[in-house]
């Protein structure tokens, strides 16, 4: 199997699995208990918090709160901050956020908040000037993802943070960094970001664990009320094995960053070049340099995405698509639509996302097979004349 869908989820690193196993087996004590038996789990949480602190470049480990997933991190940040600042009723976000964020703002919009959604250009880059122009005195929260999950485009969150704080110091700034963590260096203490969320399973921890960074002076309310865990900001008995796992995964991802930036980028670029060279109806939906190393989004014109995925799957290749048919929602990707990707390529857009486990031979295999798949699938398409024009244009 060739797994090129690492923006959906990743394989658990063996070393991460080793790290969590003791807490699923013998060391099952509740870390809040007073006996010696609870010491190991309690220490595991402390260590994990330090590791995630270092991974995100936070100043203190108490700035890190463990959650169950990226969506919980986002919901805690957004709802928690808005609850503490009820006079301000204006929010700025982007059109291309993950649904976990976007749908949360849609709810606030229904409840009387005014939300500005900032657009992107055809390369998926954020319109920073538009964002700046929307900032107002009553803007409670600005929210921009660190990197886009579908295109991999990185947004200048540090610059945005600087601008917000220079104009409106009370406005909070939340960054959904789920697709950036483990792919590019993050160093929150060097920035004016107030809150930042991550998800473990995007960097080789298991599903079911996330974390939220909150700057020390930023007030927020908990999403889940109850016990004293996470300093009263996230109740519920700590999920010790998974917390240990995200700590270990963070440590390993930090170590692998230079490999990610160099080698994964090289493999991704090789994949893009190979496909564009050999497949006449392929187009890069975005080719900007400023992308996370592992993500590529390619549109195959006049062919539908799910059909491509099924044929890839028949060859053991896993990828994903922005097409309507794969989501069950009937609508194609909101990100690609915000970019204005033409209909001819929109429904046939495929996202390949690599990881540090991707092998050169995996990439070679996909490059080799893609022309055959496209030859077969374009022959079924009713748009033969349009395809012929493309074929001629490519020579």
């Amino acid at each position, binding site marked *: 199997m060739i797994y090129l869908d690492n923006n959906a989820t990743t394989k658990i690193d063996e070393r991460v699995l080793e790290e969590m196993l003791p807490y699923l087996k013998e060391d099952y004590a509740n870390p809040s208990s007073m006996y010696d038996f609870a010491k190991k789990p309690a220490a595991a949480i402390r260590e994990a918090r330090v590791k995630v602190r270092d991974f995100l470049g936070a100043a203190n480990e108490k700035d890190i709160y463990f959650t169950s997933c990226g969506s919980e991190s986002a919901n805690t940040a957004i709802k928690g901050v808005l609850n503490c600042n009820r006079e301000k009723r204006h929010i700025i976000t982007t059109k291309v956020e993950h649904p976990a964020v976007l749908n949360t703002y849609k709810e606030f919009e229904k409840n009387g908040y005014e939300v500005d959604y900032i657009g992107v250009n055809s390369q998926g880059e954020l319109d920073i000037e538009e964002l700046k122009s929307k900032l107002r005195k009553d803007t409670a929260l600005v929210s921009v993802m660190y990197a886009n999950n579908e295109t991999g485009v990185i947004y200048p969150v540090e610059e945005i943070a600087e601008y917000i704080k220079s104009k409106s110091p009370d406005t909070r700034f939340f960054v959904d960094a789920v697709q950036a963590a483990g792919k590019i260096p993050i160093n929150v203490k060097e920035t004016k970001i107030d809150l930042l969320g991550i998800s473990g399973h995007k960097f080789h921890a298991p599903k079911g664990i996330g974390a939220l960074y909150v700057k020390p002076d930023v007030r927020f309310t908990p999403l889940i009320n109850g016990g004293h865990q996470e300093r009263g900001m996230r109740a519920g008995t700590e999920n010790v094995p998974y917390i240990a796992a995200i700590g270990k995964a963070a440590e390993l991802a930090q170590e692998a960053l230079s490999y990610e930036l160099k080698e994964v980028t090289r493999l991704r670029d090789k994949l893009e070049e190979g496909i564009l060279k050999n497949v006449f109806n392929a187009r890069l939906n975005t080719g900007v340099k400023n992308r996370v190393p592992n993500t590529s989004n390619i549109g195959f014109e006049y062919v*539908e995405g799910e059909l491509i995925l099924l044929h890839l799957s028949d060859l053991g290749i896993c990828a994903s698509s922005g097409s309507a*048919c794969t989501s069950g929602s009937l609508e194609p990707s909101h990100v690609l639509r915000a970019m204005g990707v033409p209909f001819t390529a929109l429904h046939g857009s495929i996202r390949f996302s690599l990881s540090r486990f991707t092998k050169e031979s995996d990439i070679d295999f996909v490059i080799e097979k893609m022309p055959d798949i496209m030859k077969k699938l374009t*022959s079924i398409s009713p748009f033969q004349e349009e395809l012929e024009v493309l074929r001629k244009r490519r020579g």
Partner: protein
Amino acid sequence: MWEYSEKVLEHYRNPRNVGKIDDADLIGEAGSLACGDSLKLYLKLDGNIIKDAKFQTFGCGSAVASSSILTEMIIGKTLEEAKKITNKDIAEELGGLPQEKMHCSVMGQEALEDALKKYYGKEEIEEEAGLPKSGDKIVCTCFNVTENQIWEAIKVNGLKTVEEVTNYTKAGGACGRCKGLIKDIIDTYYKKEVKEEVLTPTQKILKISKVIDQQISPQLQKDGGDVELIDVEGNKVKVKLTGMCSGCKNATMTLKSFVESVLKDKVDANLEVEQV
């Protein structure tokens, strides 16, 4: 991951009858590139028998499989037989489709209908399917779905909820603004069906009489006229206009656009009113 049947897998992997018939006698189209799937169906006739069929599809696995199996189903059939094929038959032949993918089978049926319309004429095909006369109206502007398409999907598949209609026709699947309209169409359809099924001839006469007494007469009386039920023969309702109505120049209009339309709406859409 969808749960596709073995047959769907077989047909998207090895679609039958792919391509174009250059001298096709009938061509049917459905869907569009913008909406994410479209199908072109080519038929070659020998008399009224479909001698050959080919297709070209832009769409997902189940759209290709639906198109492919449809060509197999119609080759060798007479046009009369092909006319009877519904989306349900296509889905069944494929060993079933996931609910969210039923619209692929509907696209197959629509392309076939579109081809047959060119042979039989639009009116006949629509009348046979029992579609509302005003049904060309677009209900879902995101996916260009007409009232007729929704009506037919409800009728063929026994759809009861808006979500089911979305699964079968895509209508309501994007902005969702037409969901209220879809609900109305579902309600209208079932009201109509209940009326047609339940009423015995005697019940029908009683109901007509009640509607005239309670809803039609009072309105006419306001203008100094009235109407009297004389007889009901099958779907023919014989009435007599009285009072001011009897000599009125607009009597025929009153009869058709008021008396008849109220009875059609409240009792049975097939009723015809005539004056005796």
